[in-house]
């Protein structure tokens, strides 16, 4: 029922400290073909999804990791302290702007939000959600910001393309209940402003 290769891959992912990329798995298991590894991975994901156990295999930040199922968090937090604090609305807004529009300067973020964002940016830098990418080649050479790998890890995103699709620009009254909006379905073939964004790393 479970192939030897799947077991090997499972053991590697299980013992890794951070998400393990497919590339890295192929590198570690160079006696196997990439295709074999990919199908063994797919098989393992399906197994955990179907089983609905205490944890599952998810693809985050460009790699694979075992994580507990969100539905069980009220049990897990009985003995594990939550490490990630709540993000304020302004932090989330700023993070969203940086995520979708990177590379972006502080002035650009502030123009979009209409408020000073220095403090929020600094706290996002300290939380390692945002990183300095360098300086923009315009007068004054302002710093440019982007999101970090840890941002993808914490928010459980596979990559920047799996960010929720921005809602089409439309009148506010057409869909006022945005708080309850379901997560948007990702369409990989959609042309999306992020295509132009710096590739990760």
């Amino acid at each position, binding site marked *: 029922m479970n192939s030897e290769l799947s077991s090997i891959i499972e053991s590697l992912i*299980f*013992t890794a*400290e951070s998400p393990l990329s497919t590339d890295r798995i192929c590198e570690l298991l160079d006696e196997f073909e990439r295709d074999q590894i990919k199908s063994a991975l797919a098989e393992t994901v399906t197994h955990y999804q179907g089983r609905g156990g205490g944890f599952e295999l998810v693809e*985050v930040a460009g790699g694979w*990791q*075992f*994580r*507990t*199922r*969100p539905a069980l*968090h009220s049990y*897990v937090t009985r003995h*594990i302290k*939550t*490490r*990630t*604090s*709540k*993000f304020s*609305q*302004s932090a*989330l*807004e*700023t*993070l*969203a*702007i940086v*995520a*979708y529009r990177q590379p972006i300067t502080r002035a650009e973020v502030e*123009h*979009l*939000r*209409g*408020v*000073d964002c220095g403090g929020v940016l600094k706290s996002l*830098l*300290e939380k*390692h959600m945002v*990183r*300095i990418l360098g300086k923009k080649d315009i007068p004054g050479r302002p710093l440019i910001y982007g999101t970090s790998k840890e941002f993808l*890890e*914490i*928010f*459980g*995103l596979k990559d920047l393309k799996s*960010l*929720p699709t*921005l*809602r089409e*620009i*439309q*009148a*506010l*009254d057409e869909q*006022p209940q*945005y*708080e309850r*909006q379901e*997560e*948007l379905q990702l369409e990989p073939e959609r042309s999306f402003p992020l295509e132009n964004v710096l590739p990760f790393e």
Partner: protein
Amino acid sequence: MSAGAQCHHEEHLPLLDGFHEQYSVHLDKFDGPMDLLLHLIKKNELDICDISIAVITRQYLDFIKLMKDLNLEVAGDFLVMAATLLQIKSRQLLPQGEPEEPEIEEIDPRGELVRRLLEYQQYKEAGMLIGARALLGREVFSREASEPFLAAAQSVEGPLEVSLFELVDAFRALLQRIPAESFHDVAPGDSLSIADCINEILSLLQERDIVQFDDLTRDEYTRERVIVTLLAVLELCRLKLIRIFQGCGDGPIWFVPAVTADPADTSEV
């Protein structure tokens, strides 16, 4: 659609009455002027693309007044937006485009604001969607325990992982620890420091073998820039890191690295 505009006089008082209970609780919920504007638009059931500037401006100013009445500090950002709203309103009051130029499309003074509001709304929503995800360390957890047999074998160092922010922050922390006089150019004005300029030259010399003086001042040909560049070049020369030469007569000044980058070679320098 423009119902708000028609009855705003009637609405005015009850609206202000409700302000105190409604907003004093939620004051800190407004995440800046854009957020407040969106709230007002939604509350008045206005079409974001066709907002009544009169209604919104009045309610916006009422809100700022209320903040002041409650002795809350009104951030400058809110005042900037107030000025923008008033400016749009005054532009709307100006006579419309000349009739003899009908081909010029009438520009809606609200256009820029509406664009910003729509864009802001998108990111606000995206932020909420992101924030509603199951976060690692909050709703979702990874494995913390390490394999006992791995712990013993873990001495091999892997690739370095550190962020630029940590580097700058370490430097800042260091500077806070040591007396200020140890540093001469820690916080220069807005001017270019010689150290920055030296860094610039060193990094140029990593890319190419020869650099012309003019290359360094081309983008920014100011007296200050030339002086700082000259001092940087002289300092590098004094440190015997570069050699300077000049073409015939008034020809361009060139410099080349005086030592190779390879540390192995330095023993015989």
